């Protein structure tokens, strides 16, 4: 009989084993789905590192693999930030590189010859599989439902909010950090539940790993203390809490201080002070609890409570005093700008200029999370219903991270895990009720209906169950439909929005065939092959890492924006007249200048569109020499055509972008397709630079900085002489400033 043979499989201990096996198979399938949905870009293009920051990580990993761990730790990089250099070993989060280095060496040990590039490209998808597993563990701690963990793992595996940062080739810190984040939280919940030093120490261990991997560790540093604080306020202090928190804090802080880039920040920076403060508070509370056991009198208890409050208040005031007096560093700018949203725009234009630091409009939420976004509040509500210690954690995490994600697009990444947990809780609550075949027995219901529930209104009555098959079918079908839609949505989003390497662009030709635009690599390879090994390349900081990674040439500034003045120097050189820029270029040994120009192709992410940020950042340092107002017409328009302001037309950036551009068009017909305007008939004239290379679609243009004139003339005169113009006598009296050669 089929039924009885099924019964053997589904009941008793072998039933448990069957379910366990099924669970493992499902989890493995989820992990496989998570990995494979991130491979679009490898299949469409090739195994290539994406975007900007990954190129630096890739370069650092290569350095680590070639030179060993210790020289990586002490790495001073003289090929970036010329002429300053960068103490790279001490200013990066080494977790990512070390992880792929270890994987590389393990594979070598197993005699599997894998190129380090392929490890780097595939690291993020690989870790996303692990994230799905960690998510399963975390959610299983939240709910007794058999389906919640699996649902959460599936959501986490394919939700675009996480895929956006972990497609193959996006070799960035977030690639491993989200796994560490989720797993640390799982260990923390486990520690709070069991009150065990082992789990606490494991939490600290993974916290330390997280610190070594991503600057976003501050989120954990503040979220765990907040969780503890809320639990104490709710009167849920317990020795479990004390043990897990103190273990985590002591070991985790020591661990995090081992990273050179973090160093003494955990005890000197306001970002970390909440953890320290709660560490103090929990000692007081523990002491009070201890004494309370010996002092029965009510008066004493009151006294004790007020003492705790007083000491806490005094400690808090002391912290404020220390930070005002400067012993404790104030909030770091990036972190502070999350609370005071206008802060970055005024004080740190370089942070405000990055597009992923912009606030999030609502379509982005739906785009990244699809129907999870409305399951999310329902899941939080269900947490309120149970409200054990771990549910408090979910609620705090949910509210905080939805605020952060609203302020900064990039932090959608930290919101995604908790959305998956909450949505899985909500959906599993529905499925658990509606997927039960047996009907509720009215008599049993009548017995159970007198209930224990306390204060929460919606859960006062006992769960009865669903009576009709029709209801079950309707709800199950519609939920399956939403789930299918979710999968389709995720695939569509991943394939369309998040799988472009942005180093290689793809567009469609009118006949529908794909047209690959490979200008970046073309130009970088030109640099690699046609310039001396130590030719200094100046470009806007966005392209610094790529030039370092792909062209292997020294750069002036790069995406590690540690020196605002240096960036402003580049901004000033780009936005000033040639006569001002040329001395700057000479002083910084610049050999080539690289600009990105999208006018021919209609590529909107080009330098002229970023130009105002260069002006603004330069203005921040030299307010007298660069003025944003000068780049706008009298009617306040940003124009590049005939009516552009003289400052705009004379700026180096404008000249380099449009130099000789009109030669592509019939006379007077030159059109900029990004800004959609007709350009002046005459090309701008460049005196101190000469065009060295322009890529196929004109996206990258490289100019060589001319050497000083052999005859000691200034470049203006030399160019005029070469053109056969008669030398003007009057030039000596007045005219543009010329380079003096000392």
């Amino acid at each position, binding site marked *: 009989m089929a039924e009885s043979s099924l019964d053997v499989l589904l009941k008793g201990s072998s039933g448990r084993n069957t379910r366990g096996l099924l669970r493992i198979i499902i989890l493995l399938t989820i992990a496989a789905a998570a990995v494979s949905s991130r491979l679009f870009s490898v299949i469409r293009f090739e195994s290539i590192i994406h975007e900007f920051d990954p190129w630096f990580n890739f370069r650092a990993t290569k350095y680590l693999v070639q030179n060993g761990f210790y020289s990586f730790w002490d790495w001073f990089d003289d090929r970036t930030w010329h002429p300053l250099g960068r103490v790279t070993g001490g200013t990066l989060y080494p977790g990512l590189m070390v992880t792929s280095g270890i994987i590389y060496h393990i594979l070598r040990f197993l005699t599997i010859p894998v190129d380090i590039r392929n490890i780097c490209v595939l690291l993020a998808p690989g870790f996303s599989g692990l994230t799905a597993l960690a998510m399963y563990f975390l959610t299983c701690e939240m709910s007794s439902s058999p389906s919640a963990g699996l649902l959460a793992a599936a959501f986490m595996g394919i939700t675009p909010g996480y895929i956006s940062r972990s497609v193959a080739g996006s070799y960035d810190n977030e690639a491993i950090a989200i796994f560490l984040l989720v797993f640390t939280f799982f260990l923390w919940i486990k520690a709070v539940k069991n009150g065990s030093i082992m789990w606490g120490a494991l939490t600290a261990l993974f916290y330390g790993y997280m610190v070594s991997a991503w600057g976003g560790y501050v989120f954990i540093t503040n979220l765990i203390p907040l969780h503890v604080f809320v639990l104490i306020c709710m009167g849920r202090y317990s020795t479990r809490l004390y043990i897990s928190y103190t273990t985590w804090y002591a070991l985790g802080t020591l661990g995090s201080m081992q990273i050179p880039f973090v160093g003494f920040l955990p005890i000197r920076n306001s970002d970390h002070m909440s953890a320290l403060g709660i560490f103090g508070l929990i000692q007081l509370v523990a002491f009070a609890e201890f004494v309370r056991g010996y002092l029965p009198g009510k008066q004493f208890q009151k006294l004790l409570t007020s003492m705790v409050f007083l000491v806490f208040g005094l400690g808090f005031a002391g912290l404020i005093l220390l930070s005002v007096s400067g012993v404790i560093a104030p909030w770091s700018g990036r972190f502070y700008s999350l609370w005071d949203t206008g802060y970055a725009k005024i004080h740190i234009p370089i942070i405000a200029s990055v597009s992923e630091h912009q606030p999030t409009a609502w379509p982005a939420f739906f785009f990244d999370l699809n129907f999870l976004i409305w399951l999310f509040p329902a899941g939080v509500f269900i947490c309120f219903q149970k409200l054990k210690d771990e549910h408090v954690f979910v609620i705090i995490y949910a*509210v905080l991270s939805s605020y952060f994600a609203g302020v900064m697009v990039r932090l959608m990444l930290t919101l995604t895990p908790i959305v998956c947990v909450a949505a899985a809780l*909500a959906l599993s609550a529905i499925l658990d009720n509606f997927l039960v075949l047996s009907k509720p027995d009215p008599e049993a219901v009548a017995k159970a209906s007198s209930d224990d529930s306390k204060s929460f209104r919606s859960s006062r009555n006992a*769960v009865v169950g669903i009576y009709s098959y029709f*209801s079950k079918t309707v709800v199950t079908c519609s939920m399956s439909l939403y789930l299918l*839609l979710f999968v389709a949505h995720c695939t569509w989003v991943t394939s369309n929005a998040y799988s472009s390497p942005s180093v290689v662009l793809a567009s469609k030709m009118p006949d529908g065939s794909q047209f690959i635009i490979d200008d970046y690599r073309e130009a970088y390879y030109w640099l690699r092959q046609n310039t001396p090994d130590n030719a200094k390349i100046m470009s806007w900081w966005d392209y610094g890492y790529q030039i370092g990674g792909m062209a292997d040439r020294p750069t002036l500034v790069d995406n590690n924006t540690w020196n605002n003045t240096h960036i402003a120097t580049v901004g000033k050189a780009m936005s000033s007249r040639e006569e001002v820029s040329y001395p700057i270029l000479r002083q910084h040994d610049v050999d080539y200048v690289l600009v990105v120009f999208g006018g021919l192709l209609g590529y909107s992410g080009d330098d002229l569109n970023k130009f105002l940020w260069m002006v603004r950042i330069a203005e921040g340092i030299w307010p007298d020499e660069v003025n944003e107002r000068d780049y706008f017409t009298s009617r306040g328009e940003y124009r590049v055509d005939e009516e552009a302001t003289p400052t705009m037309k004379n700026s180096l950036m404008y000249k380099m972008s449009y130099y000789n551009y009109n030669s592509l068009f019939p006379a007077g017909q030159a059109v900029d397709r990004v800004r959609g305007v007709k350009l002046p008939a005459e090309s701008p004239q460049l005196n101190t630079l000469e065009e060295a290379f322009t890529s196929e679609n004109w996206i990258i243009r490289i100019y060589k900085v001319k050497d000083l004139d052999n005859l000691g003339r200034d470049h203006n005169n030399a160019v005029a002489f070469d053109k056969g113009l008669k030398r003007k006598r009057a030039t000596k009296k007045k005219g543009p400033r010329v380079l003096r050669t000392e």
Partner: protein
Amino acid sequence: MKPWATLFIFFSVISGVLAAKPSDTFEKFQSLSRSGPVDLDSASFKELTTVPRDYYAAVILTAIDARYGCIMCREFDSEWDLISRSWNKGTKLEGLKVVFGTLDFDHGKDVFQKLLLQTAPVLLLFPPTVGPFAKVDAEPARFDFTGPVTADQIYSWIGRHLPDGPRPPLIRPVNYMRIASAITLLMGAATLFTVLSPYVLPIIQNRNLWAAVSLIAILLFTSGQMFNHIRKVPYVAGDGHGGISYFAGGFQNQFGLETQIVAAIYAVLSFATIALAVKVPRMEDVKGQQLAVITWGAVLFATYSFLLSVFKTKNGGYPFYLPPF
């Protein structure tokens, strides 16, 4: 003006030099100022800015009177006062003289006309023409106010035009009143809390209240409320045909009303989910349960379909939809 004129003549007589000698002009305005900025009119402005002068003159041309509706002028007035006080009190470079003045539109219409000023406030800094810090170019440096400006910005702007050397820091007077009132308020709040705690605590400890607050916060944040706050988007906009367009075009734009609609959609969807997950399985009535399931299921379906259609308008290439909308 009379007594000052006599004083002025008196000074010129006893010193036995020409009245136009610049150092005297400086002394005169310095004594006038009494550590704050000098209130100027057309005549004294002219006197202050005539060459030769051996001092810097920083003059703000402003229109404080409420008639002109210049909010920036009024806001900056106290800041300007702060700057001149800080400067006059502190120690500065030997021999460096700076006069701070305020010229109101009411007293100096012709100055505004002469300088062809259309807007206020405008800050002019006249460099000295004689003396150790003399500049060749006697033209004043001009600062145009394009947005709200703090005293620190202006102070550093002025500082850039002055010769290098020690300059007094900008000191904001400690607002004792505010500190005192803050402490009083804090203590009052603490007292109130202790007194009211038997009544307040049940409210604070109410789980339903916290659930409501958290859910509302989450709904607001995930519907892009912070974007509205930071970008200061319009609440609604016209569609060009006299109607209202509820949804902004483009993926990166949104209106205030739009986010509220979206938040409401999310709320409906969430509550339908909560109803299905929590409320419905607790219903004992068979018929009622059936009805509730169908109702909530239909609400869920229709609202989600509407949400998808709204999203489709924002993102043209989006291929998915659900039937009704």
